[in-house]
């Protein structure tokens, strides 16, 4: 039995971790992630959640403790943001390489310098190659749903990869929204107990994290890549089961009013919702425009993306990060993904919304108009920007 409640997205995530019955939470405070571990610590202190909370001394240790806890077979959760995510960078690679299914929420935040506690996607993009399964949330409901789903996917015996759930710091992490909270029985039905197949156990001594000499390292890495690609099946299956149990449908690439669209806008995370308003307005005025949103960032949804842009002449990609010396990272990945298509849209990249800069409806209006212009007539700029003086 689900009930309709108003929850801050951060608290929705904490609620999801509670209903997933996590065993170990290991976290270090960093704005704008703090409401998640605070709420979890409170639940543990009040006995609402039978879990151990490790108040570690850094993000590096937060992730490292998660590795140890996961390796003994505990369901393990953490959350971080921006600089914290980068501080654990070295450890991030280890979790998927050792097939340890940690779930982590990232309240996306800009990186220093200048120091900024506000949001953008620089933190995500810097860790995109670490081997984690990664998804973006648009609202509180998704923050809850995708956290539950993350445990289900990551802990699947054929997957055993960590999962990062991205929510925009502040515009999403700190926003109170109405959402449906499912009953515990439904969560239990969807999410079986974690049974790590290779726990640290004196009865079955195993060596975890051995040295990979050159004659074995390449094969180990290829095997990891194959396993991540294959996790796609479980990702899709879990979303199908999620729909069966909870009635909400998720897909790797969300398509919004894309029927017959000549122009498509591509956004990720919470800004997808602002973009939808603009798309509605323009559709109502007869403009053949639609929106796509990449929800599954890793493994990259090539097939779904190619399908979603079929028939469109222009694709305008909105990045909230600069890959210095290269432009927008999502833009370059998307354009590369479409390169082999016989009929592909002209792809135009915009960068904006950095370090908490708001991108309101009218800026999306500019982005669309300017994007169409550049797509049709070309531009000598390496990178288009929106909302930047």
């Amino acid at each position, binding site marked *: 039995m689900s009930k309709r409640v108003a929850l801050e997205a951060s608290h929705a995530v904490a609620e999801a971790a509670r209903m997933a019955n996590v065993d170990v939470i290991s976290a270090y405070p960093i704005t704008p992630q703090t409401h998640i571990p605070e709420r979890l610590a409170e639940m543990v202190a009040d006995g609402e959640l039978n879990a151990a909370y490790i108040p570690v001394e850094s993000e*590096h240790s937060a992730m490292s403790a998660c590795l140890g806890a996961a390796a003994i077979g505990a369901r393990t959760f953490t959350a971080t943001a921006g600089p914290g995510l980068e501080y654990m960078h070295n450890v991030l690679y280890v979790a998927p390489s*050792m097939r340890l299914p940690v779930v982590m929420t990232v309240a996306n935040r800009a990186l220093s310098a200048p120091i900024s506690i506000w949001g953008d996607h620089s933190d995500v993009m810097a860790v995109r190659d670490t081997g984690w399964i990664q998804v973006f949330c648009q609202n509180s409901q998704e923050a809850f749903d995708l956290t539950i789903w993350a445990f289900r996917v990551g802990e699947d015996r054929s997957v055993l990869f960590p999962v990062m759930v991205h929510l925009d710091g502040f515009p999403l992490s700190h926003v109170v929204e109405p959402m449906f909270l499912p009953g515990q029985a439904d969560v239990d039905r969807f999410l079986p107990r974690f049974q790590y197949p290779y726990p640290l156990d*004196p009865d079955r001594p195993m060596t975890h994290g051995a040295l990979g000499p050159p004659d074995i390292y390449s094969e180990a890495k290829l095997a990891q890549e194959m396993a991540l690609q294959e996790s796609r099946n479980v990702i899709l299956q879990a979303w199908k089961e999620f729909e069966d149990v909870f009635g909400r449908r998720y897909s790797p690439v969300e398509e919004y009013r894309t029927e017959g669209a000549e122009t498509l806008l591509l956004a990720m995370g919470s800004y997808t919702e602002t973009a939808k308003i603009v798309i509605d307005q323009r559709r109502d005025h007869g403009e053949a425009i639609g929106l796509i949103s990449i929800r599954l960032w890793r493994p990259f949804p090539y097939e779904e993306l190619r399908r979603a842009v079929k028939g469109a002449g222009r694709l305008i990609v909105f990045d909230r990060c600069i890959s210095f010396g290269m432009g927008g990272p999502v833009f370059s990945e998307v354009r590369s993904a479409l390169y082999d298509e016989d009929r592909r849209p002209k792809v135009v990249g915009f960068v904006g919304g950095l370090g908490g800069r708001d991108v309101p409806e009218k800026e999306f209006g500019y982005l669309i108009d300017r994007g169409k212009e550049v797509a049709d007539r070309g531009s000598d700029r390496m990178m288009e920007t929106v909302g930047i003086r």
Partner: protein
Amino acid sequence: MKTQEAKRKSVKFADGEVTTTEFLAEGHNFCTGCGESLGIRMALKALGENVIAVNATGCAEVCTTPLPYTSWRIPWIHTLFENVGAVVSGVEVGLKILVSKGRIEDRGIKCVAMGGDGATSDIGLQALSGAFERGHDFLYICWDNEAYMNTGIQRSSATPYGAATTTAPAGKQSIGQITRKKNMPAIAAAHDIPYVATASPSYRMDLMKKIKKGAETEGPAYVHVLVPCPTGWRHGGEVTIELGKLAVQTGIFPLYEIENGRYKLNADPPELKPVKEYLKMQGRYRHLSDADIEKIQAMVNADYARLKEKVAASSASS
């Protein structure tokens, strides 16, 4: 629970019983005469099989686990260089909560973490300090060979004054290491943890007793083991044990325990041997002049006197 260990053979060895089971399998890649491999072998005998080990990157990890081989007959995990204190925190906490939830049988599994001097006193110090402060129930063993030996003898904060290393070489303008060895046992003790000790593979029963005691201590325990390194110290592998003894007999590396803040010397020779005997056997000190050696002798005398003051203060207050 398995009771194999009890059934396994043990032998009388000096003043105690030691299992004949080898938990560190033969065929590893440690150098001939390596003090660390001896220490690990003894420590594992003392710990038995009801243990989970967390290891830092370093000689021990590289020499024992080239895929697809392993020398570890106990559950063992290595992730990175700098995070052992945090990984063992996760293991210990995970173990405790899963035991409390009835998903792991309650049979007193011990958690042990280990790393070299670099992993302990340099890059991993923050993670270790956090683990001490949080009071996790684990034993940390520092295998101190006084430099980054695995990467090629670079200086660490545990390298003693006057030793030549590849990044603090002796030259016309330098004596080599110009700084004093970081006092890691004192740092561990400053966390008010219940058990801190120093040990040496040259004093086998003492080492094994301390490892066992550390593992059985409730809360964090720290054992700092000085392990001669023929490759880095530049001495023959046949003198490893002798050097370990001389380190103790000269007062350069005294054997002591700090139990609940109280210092106790485990070996207090009536007269310390001159440090020269120890230094002269090692190529890393080859460049030292008599004046340099005198300076080191004075440092050791002062350090030893300070340690004895702490011991005296501890026994006076008992």
